[in-house]
């Protein structure tokens, strides 16, 4: 029985990591998985590599003088047998998204490598040539080249090993101070894998090049819809799991460590009775016969305080990675590709309908949730104003509601 749990842990942990490994190692079929850019393909590449340089005006060979500085990343459109076109980020205090968009471009400008070559000119190729098998077979799979995939694989393997070490240690009864440390290390590697996965997927949502030996031209391609959705799903799922793991780690500091490899099912009434906000978990509930209380977590209070500081530092690190790197560099390209797929498909009974619904929901979520937040803020403040007013009335003060809170409320709402 004891050994079987260790084996089960090993098998389930490895199985959990297999899909994340399989996606990056999947060999794309050049005839099926790529669509030639016979219509414009839109992308922005902030940081270039030898295979696919960054999309600056200089690298795109644009002659328009409006693109200054020349090595500042711009949003480009490429179409086989036509020249590049581009639009540069415009900073305006009236446009918040515009301001947000300049941040990754500025970072890309700072990090840009001037020694990379220019982007091959698509105007020098014939679009029919780009559909031939010989040209398609030369498509360079640039996301799999470079150090990002190495970092991703390393982080993924370390994450798996740490998860395994954590769960085996917990099953073996190792003190929780050690298992918690291993759990935190596992989470750090998971976050690293998420960042690398986003970088890989951001590259996968851009364009792919097949250089034509004759001349300096090249054919451009983008991933087909199914391959794109698969590429986008991996980092999003990994980030979601990282987020959930972080919340669970913090809970485990308060209530005790838990097994990572499986979800233990408990009755609903027990889950409700042991909700996180109650600060206590017990094995039994009132009404149960012969209730056996759960043993206390044997973690000294002093150590919990240290873990709390550690958890807060991890949270700040997580926020920095999300706001500083993942969201600005990857989310724009992700959303753009999904929106393009949603727009380019007609309404029909196909899986693409789900993509269309998701896109509309994602696009509309900002104003809807924003208004909900505004309304929530409004009603919360109204509630506070009335409670303050009632307390003042009880004290015999003036019943005038136009106090400081009311003025602040009016100002915020306006």
């Amino acid at each position: 029985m004891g050994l079987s749990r260790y084996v089960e842990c090993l098998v389930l942990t490895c199985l959990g990591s297999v899909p994340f490994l399989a996606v990056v190692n999947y060999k794309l079929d050049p005839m099926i998985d790529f669509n030639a850019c016979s219509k414009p393909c839109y992308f922005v590449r902030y940081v270039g590599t030898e295979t696919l340089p960054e999309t600056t005006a200089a690298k795109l060979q644009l002659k328009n003088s409006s693109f200054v500085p020349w090595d500042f990343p711009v949003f480009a459109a490429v179409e086989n047998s036509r020249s590049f076109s581009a639009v540069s980020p415009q900073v305006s205090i009236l446009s918040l998204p515009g301001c947000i968009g300049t941040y990754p471009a500025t970072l890309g400008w700072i990090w840009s490598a001037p020694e990379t070559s220019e982007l091959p000119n698509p105007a020098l190729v014939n679009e029919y040539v780009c559909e031939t098998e010989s040209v398609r077979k030369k498509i360079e799979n640039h996301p799999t080249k470079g150090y990002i995939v190495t970092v991703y694989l390393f982080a993924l393997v370390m994450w798996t090993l740490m998860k395994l070490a954590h769960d085996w240690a917990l099953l073996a009864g190792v003190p929780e101070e050690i298992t918690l440390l291993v759990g935190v290390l596992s989470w750090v590697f998971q976050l690293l894998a998420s960042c690398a996965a986003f970088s890989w997927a951001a590259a996968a949502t851009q364009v792919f090049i097949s250089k034509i030996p004759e001349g300096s031209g090249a054919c451009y391609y983008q991933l087909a819809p199914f391959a794109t959705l698969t590429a986008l799903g991996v980092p999003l799922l990994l980030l979601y799991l990282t987020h959930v793991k972080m919340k669970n780690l913090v809970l485990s500091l308060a209530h005790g460590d838990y097994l990572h490899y499986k979800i233990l099912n408990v009755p609903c009434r027990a889950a409700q009775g042991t909700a996180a906000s109650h600060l206590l978990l017990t094995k039994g509930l009132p009404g149960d016969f012969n209730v056996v209380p759960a043993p206390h977590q044997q973690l000294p209070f002093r150590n919990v305080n240290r873990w709390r500081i550690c958890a807060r530092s991890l949270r700040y690190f997580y926020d920095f990675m999300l706001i500083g790197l993942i969201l600005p560099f990857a989310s724009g390209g992700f959303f753009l590709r999904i929106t393009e797929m949603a727009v380019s498909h007609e309404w029909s009974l196909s899986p693409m309908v789900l993509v269309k619904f998701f896109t509309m929901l994602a696009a509309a979520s900002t104003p809807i949730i924003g208004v909900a937040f505004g309304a929530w803020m409004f009603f919360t403040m109204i509630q506070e104003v009335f409670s303050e007013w009632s307390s003042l009335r009880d004290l015999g003060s003036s019943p005038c509601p136009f106090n400081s809170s009311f003025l602040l409320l009016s100002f915020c709402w306006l």
Partner: protein
Amino acid sequence: MSIQLVLPIAEFLLALSTSGGAWNIVQAVAFHPGADALQSLQQHWEWHLHGISTALFVFLAFAVEVDEHLEQVLSSYRLNGHGSDPDMLEDGSDTFASLIHNKFLKCSATQSLTFTNSEF
């Protein structure tokens, strides 16, 4: 100004500034499907920016303090007269769980908890 106030204001401002872009996308997806809608460079750049704004918005919406739970435990412990500095507890036997246990025993009369003393 507390984070509880800053976050909704930031969310609200972000929502206002992206509402135009959101409507354009919903309109394009719902009413103008087909290849013709894929022609404008500026439109695609706006979609790209809207993606970044939406991701930032979702992040803000979920930007809850994950260590709030631990803070809650620690502050409730302090409020119940166990001292203000947790590091003063050098004794390893005085575990965190037993402190919570004591706290609940102490407060069981005043709080609407479903736990009974027999469970401890």
